[in-house]
C-alpha cells in the first residue's frame, strides 16, 4: 500500500467474487471486511437491502450485491462476507460471496464497459480490467449505493 504513489495511474483494488464473477473495489473506499452476524431484516425495504446489523455500536446497512447486480440469488447455506464502505457518514456492508487478494492495477489499462453488458451491471461498473485468467469489473461504490428507494418501494 505504501507504494501507491509510485505511479499515479496505478490503483489498488480489493477483489471480491460474486456469483463467480470477479469485482474490484478501490481500496481507499473499503473500511473493513467482516462476516455479517445477527442481521435484522427490514420489512418493506427495497429487495437489495439484506438488512441491518450492529458493528461496534454503529448501524450498518447490508446490501445484497447479488440482487443489486441482478445476479442469481445465493444458495442459503453459503456463508457470505461483507465489505464495509462509508458514504456521507453512513455505514454500508456490501454482501459478497468471498473476498480475494488486493491487486494493483494500471488505471490506463482499464477498458470501457462492453455495450452488451446487462443494465444492472453497466449502471455500477467503472470499467473492465483484463486479467490473466479472467475479467475484473471495477465497481463504482457511489453508484452501487445509489439505490433508488422510491422506485423500489
Amino acid at each position, binding site marked *: 500500500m505504501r507504494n501507491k504513489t509510485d505511479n499515479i495511474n496505478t490503483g489498488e483494488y480489493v477483489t471480491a467474487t460474486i456469483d463467480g464473477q470477479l469485482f474490484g473495489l478501490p481500496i481507499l473506499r473499503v473500511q473493513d471486511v467482516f462476516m455479517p452476524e*445477527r442481521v*435484522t*431484516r*427490514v*420489512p*418493506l*425495504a*427495497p429487495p437489495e*437491502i439484506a438488512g*441491518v*446489523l*450492529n458493528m461496534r*455500536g454503529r*448501524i450498518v*446497512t447490508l446490501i445484497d450485491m447479488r440482487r443489486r447486480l441482478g445476479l442469481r440469488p445465493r444458495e442459503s447455506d453459503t456463508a457470505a462476507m461483507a465489505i464495509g464502505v462509508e458514504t*456521507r*457518514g*453512513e455505514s*454500508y456492508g456490501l454482501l459478497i460471496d468471498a473476498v480475494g487478494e488486493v491487486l494493483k492495477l494500471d488505471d490506463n489499462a482499464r477498458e470501457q464497459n462492453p455495450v452488451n453488458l446487462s443494465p444492472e451491471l453497466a449502471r455500477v461498473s467503472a470499467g473492465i480490467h483484463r486479467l490473466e485468467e479472467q475479467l475484473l469489473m471495477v465497481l463504482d461504490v457511489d453508484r452501487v*449505493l445509489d*439505490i433508488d*428507494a*422510491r422506485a423500489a*418501494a
Partner: protein
Amino acid sequence: MDDLLREFVTETSESLDVVDVELVRFEQEPNNAEILGNIFRLVHTIKGTCGFLGLPRLEALAHAAETLMGKFRDGAPATREAVSVILASIDRIKSIIDALARDQREPDGSDADLIGELERLCQRVGAPAAGVESKPAVTTSQAIEIEDVAAPCMDGTQPAGEVDTAESVAKAEPKGGNQSIRVAVDTLDHLMDMVSELVLTRNQLLEIVRRHEESEFKAPLQRLSNVTAELQEGVMKTRMQPIGNAWQKLPRIVRDLAEELGKQIDLEMHGAETELDRQVLDLIKDPLTHMVRNSADHGLETPAERRAAGKPECGRIRLSAYHEGGHIIIRIADDGRGLDTARIKAKAIAQGLVSEADAQKLSDAQIHKFIFFPGFSTAATVTNISGRGVGMDVVRTNIDQIGGTIDVKSVAGAGVSFTIKIPLTLAIVSALIVTAGGEHFAIPQIAVVELVRARGGSDHRVERIRDTAVLRLRDKLLPLAHLATLLGLGNGSDHEQGYIVVLQVGSQCFGVAVDGVFHTEEIVVKPMSSRLRHITMFSGNTILGDGSVIMIVDPNGIAQAIGGTVSGQLAAAEVAESKPMESSAAETTSLLVFRAGSPHAKAVPLSLVTRLEEIDAKTIELSNGRHMIQYRGQLMPLIRMNEDVRVKGEGPQPLLVFSDGSHSMALVVDEIVDIVEDRLDIQVASDTPGVLGSAIVKGQATEIIDVGHFLPLAFEDWFRRKDRPARVERRSVLLVDDSPFFRNMLTPVLQAAGFKVAVASSAPAALEMINAGETFDVIVTDIEMPELNGYEFAEKLRADPRTAAIPVIGISSTVSAEAAEHGRRAGFHDFVAKFDRQGLIASLKEQSELDRVA
C-alpha cells in the same frame, strides 16, 4: 488578552444578533421606549468594551451609531432611512468583528462613509447635539435597564452576574457568584456521546442480570440505572435550545428583503419557545433561512399584484413550530401566489426528470415535489436573493441528514406551505419491545395508551366487519391491524392469541396487534439509513441491550397505513398526498358504511358509534308502539332511519348502538357494509331530516347520516335530563368551524343540550357578528381554519375588551398536550376533541356555569 478578546467577539456577535431583531421591531413600533433602551444599551456596551480593549475603529463607529440612537431616545422620530443606516453600521461592525476573530486585530479600512452618514442624520434630526451630550444619559438609563432588560435579550448562557454598572470593568474580571458558565459545544456533544454509550452499556448489564434471578449485582445495578437516567436527562437538557434561536436573524432578513424587493412582508413567528436538540437546531438553521428567503422572493407578490388579486397588500410569511408525537413540526407558510405548477412541470421535462407522457399523469402535488430535485430552480430571473439553482434540494439534503422529512403543499393563488418534520432529538426515548412476524420492534412509549388482551367474552373483543377487524374497547370501536400485516411480514397470529397495543396519534386512536410483548427499554434512537428512510412505518432504528439492531415503529406511519384498509400503504400515502393545505374537511375520517331502507350507501363517522350489535330479531319487543330490546338490563329503543327500513321478524338484525351516559339507542339498519377511511367532504347538502348531505366515500356517492337528529327521537328528553340548564333563559353559543359537516353535526347536538346556537363559517365571519353587536355566552371554535386559525381568533377575542371575558372552547381533530398548552396560552378555556360530543357538552356546561358565577 486573547481570552478577553475571544469572549468579546462571542458576546458581541450575540448582542448584535439581538440588536438586529430589536431594530426591526423598533422600526415597526417607533414609540416603544423599552425596545430602544434595549438597543441603546447593547450598542453602548459594545462601544465601551471597544474602548477598553483598544479597538478604535469599532469604537468610533459604535459611538456614531449610539449618538444617533440617543436622538431617537430623546424623542426624535425614527425614520426608515435612519434605521437602514444604523443596520448598515451594525453590519459593518459585524464584519469587523469577524475579521477580528480571524486575525486578532482590527482590519484596516475606514468607516468615514457610514460615520459621515450617521452624523449627517444626527444633524438633521436636529436635537441640540453631539455624542458627548448623550453620555450622562447613558449611565442613568443603564442603571434602570439592568434589572428588567438584561436577561431576556441574551440567551441563557449569559452570565447573570455580569451586568454591572461599570460594564467594561465587569468584562475584565468575571466575578464569583455567576449563575451560568459558557461551555464549548464540543464538550456537550462529547458528553452526549458518552451518555449514549453509557445507556447502551447499562442496557446490556440489565439484560445480563435479567437472566440471573438471584444476582448480587441487582441492587447496585438498579442504582446505576437510575443515576444513568438522571445523567442522561441532565445532559439532554443542556443541549436543548428554543427554536427561536434559529429564527433570530429572520426578521432582519425579511425586512431587508422587503426593502429591496419593494414588497410589504409581515413575518409571523409562532412557537419560538419550542425546544429541540441543538445539533438538530444547527442543521435546520440554514434551510429555514433559505426557505423564508424563498417565500419572500418567489412566493409573495408585489403589492400591486396582490391588490390586483384582491389580497391585502401586505404579504404574510408564517413560521410555526410545535411538538407532535416525538417529532417537531416546523411549518413555513406564505399567502403568496403558490407554486407555478406549469413551469415546474416544463422544467422537470426539460431536465429529463420525467417524460412528457408521464408528466401528464402526475398530480399537482407530485409535480410540486420536483422542486426538491438537485439543481432545480424555477425563478425566471436569478435575483440577488434566491434563484441561483441551489435551492430546495440543498434544504432537503440537510433535513435528510437529521432523519427528517419535508413536504410541500401549494394552492395556486393562496400560497405555499412547507412542513418539515424532524425528530425531537437524535437521542434517547423509552420504547416498548414487541414481536410480530418473527421480528422484534420498538414502539415509542409516548404513543402507547394501553395494552390489552382481546379474548372472546371479555369487554374488549375483536370483531370483523367484512375483512376489516375492529377492536371493541369498552365503549369504543377502534380500527385494528396486525403489525406483521402492516409490515408485509405475513398475516400475523390470530388477534385473540397475542396482545393489542392501543396507540394514539393526535386524536386518532387505533389498535395494533402484536404476537408478543417483552419489556420497555430506553433506546438510543439512530436515524434510519438514507436508503431506508422512505419507509414511513419506521422512525429510526436502535441497538438493544443484547447487541441486536431493531426498527423503531413510527406511530404516525402506522396511523396512516391503518387508514387505507384495502390498498394499504400506497392508498394512505395517496390520501396524505392529496390533502390540500390546512383544510379540516380534507382530513380523513373513519366512516362506517351501511345500508338502510335503500340500496344506496349510507355512512356515519365511526367514532360516533358506540357499538355494533347483531341481535336475534325475535328478541325485539313492541312496547307503547315502539320497538325495544332488552339490552344490558335496560330497555333500549330501536329507531328506524326512515319508513323504508323494516324491522326484521326473525334472523339476525344488525344495529348501530349510540350511547350517552346511561341512555342507549339503536339505529336499525339492513346491513353493515364496511369501515373505510376517507375524506369527509359533504358536497351536496340535504333537506331530508336525519341526513346531513352526500359525500363521495371510496368513489361512491354516500349519504352522511346526522346522528344528532335521531338521538332525540329515541328519548324525547335526550340531553335534557339532568344536564339541561335549570334556568329558563338559554345560554347562547357561537360555533365557528369552516367545515359544514361539523357545523351541521354539532348544531343539533348543542341545541338538544339546551343551547341557543349561532354558527359562523370562519373566524372573520365570527368577528363580524360580534362587531355587529351580537353577544354570546360561550364560543366554540375549530382550530384548523383558513384565514384566521383558532389560536389567532382566540387571541383577537382576548384583546377585545367586549369579548375578553367570554369563555372560548377549542375543538380540534388533533388534541395533543402541546396543542392544549398552545391553546391555553392563546386564551382557550378548554380544549376538546372534535368527535367528543359529551366532552364538549360537559365543557360547555362548565364554562357557561363558571361564567354565570363570575
